[in-house]
């Protein structure tokens, strides 16, 4: 240890290259006092937090007993899991926001399924019947009633399947406040040419409610009359 300078400041010495706790015997009294007082303070603080004492003796240069590189693998896995869980959480929140937004719009809405699908697709071969389910959700605090009807379904080339041929069961739907009700659509495909047709299910008495319909008509079933 160097002595103090003329101005009272001690000359610093490089402390590197020795094991401090192993070299306690080479310490001056004041150095040992500094080390022990500091150790007492921090260990007391950590004990208050329920922390573990460090293992005695020198630490191996390549780790503290774990497999080499295990800490890095563990960190990489944690990072990947965090990324994945954040992705799942964000996806869920985005989806939940959409559903919530949809439910917060008060009124009677038509959907193709009870999970809020916004288009009804029905299909069938000429000479058979196409069928599907229409859901009505009443998010108002009043009962609602509607007579369902299908508009004409139009293909890209102008051909039309008349909506009047369609029927709904029940034909008139009554929905309690906050409730959902399903109605079954049936559409005979007699004489319908194969193709894709588009139209709407409308609800008489509820001018804002409409559900897009997509009809996929195929050729006649083999062997049918």
């Amino acid at each position, binding site marked *: 240890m160097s002595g*103090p300078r003329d101005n*009272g400041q001690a000359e*610093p010495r490089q402390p590197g290259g020795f094991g401090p706790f192993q070299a306690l015997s080479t310490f001056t009294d004041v*150095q040992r006092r500094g*080390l022990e007082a500091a150790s007492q303070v*921090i260990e007391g603080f950590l004990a208050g937090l329920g922390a573990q004492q460090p293992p005695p003796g020198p*630490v191996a240069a390549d780790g503290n007993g774990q497999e080499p590189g295990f800490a890095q693998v563990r960190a990489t896995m944690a990072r990947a899991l965090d990324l994945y869980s954040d992705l799942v959480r964000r996806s869920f929140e985005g989806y939940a926001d959409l559903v919530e937004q949809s439910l917060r719009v008060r009124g009677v809405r038509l959907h193709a399924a009870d999970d809020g699908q916004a288009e009804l697709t029905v299909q069938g071969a000429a000479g058979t019947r196409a069928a599907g389910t229409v859901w009505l959700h009443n998010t108002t605090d009043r009962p609602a009633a509607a007579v369902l009807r299908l508009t004409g379904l139009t293909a890209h080339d102008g051909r039309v399947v008349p909506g009047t041929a369609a029927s709904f069961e029940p034909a008139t739907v009554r929905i309690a406040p906050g409730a959902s009700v399903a109605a079954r659509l049936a559409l005979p495909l007699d004489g319908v040419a194969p193709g894709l047709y588009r139209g709407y299910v409308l609800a008489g008495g509820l001018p804002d409610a409409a559900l897009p319909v997509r009809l996929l008509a195929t050729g006649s079933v083999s062997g049918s009359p």
Partner: protein
Amino acid sequence: MSPPVGLEGVEATLARYSRLTREAMERYLQGRLPDRYLYDLVRDYPSRAGKGIRPSLLLATCQAFGGSVDEAIGPAVAIELAHNAFLVHDDVEDGSAQRRGRPTLHRLHGMPLAVNAGDALAVLALEPLRDGAPLSSRVSRRVSEEFLAMLTRTIEGQATELGWRADNVVDLDPTDYLELISRKTCWYTTVWPLRVGALIGSSGTAPLDPMTRFGFYLGAAFQIRDDLLNLVGSEARYGKELLGDLREGKRTLMLIHLLASAAPDQRRAVVAYLAAAARGEADGMAPEELLDLMVRHGSLEFAFQFGQGVAAAAYESFHQAFADVPPSPHRDFVEALIPYMLERSA
């Protein structure tokens, strides 16, 4: 990045990390109004070149544990802004005249505006934590919790020191001093940067108690050196008025040693001097005389050697804390900070 060699190497690395932090910090400070009464003042201390130990320690630890600068730069900016907030308020509380080689903020703009600018810096420090986009929500939440705990401990430590001075508490020993600086200095200077660097770099898998232990020893060595520089450093390099701690009656290791080793009549004179300092008055003794007493009683040498003992504990605890961290220039830099804390002149 090559490993830092000696004081100059450490200072070059500190300068590099500081520049990164300052550039990121500007994003939070630019373009805000009103300039004249608030944001010009808010930008003042951060624009004065500091050492940048806190953000550098955080960024290097994060990289050593496998993380990136991008992940840690927000918390690095947060701690630098909080540090500047503490400095503004410290200077008011201590009645300091200089900070980083220039007049303190309250000397330039008056007490009310300076205190308000300090408040603004403390609030702005939260913004980079809120913008924790590169971090997972789990790690980001833990960083914020650590930040809150760090702020609380620092304020508690500062309150204790101010209280000791106000009540002229003199029956203190080195353990009391270490208890004080563990809260007042270590937590935000070294413990938090190490804990958060390891937390981010390891995605929350590294044990943090060894970081607390190492951070305490490193921060205590830093503070002991800082107290010595206030007495015998170069004012131009140190950036604060020399003997300021003596004028303020700050309870340093040297003062505690002097109070314990001075003859009874000398001790009475020192206690009277401290009582006057607490009232903001000058007693019969000049600060230079107090320093002379310290030199004659070996208080400076005592503090220096005591600091060396603390630094030795820092070496041991560094190897515990970084046991599972592979060799890298970042790890080397953190280790090189231990002798730097004892040797620095600024």
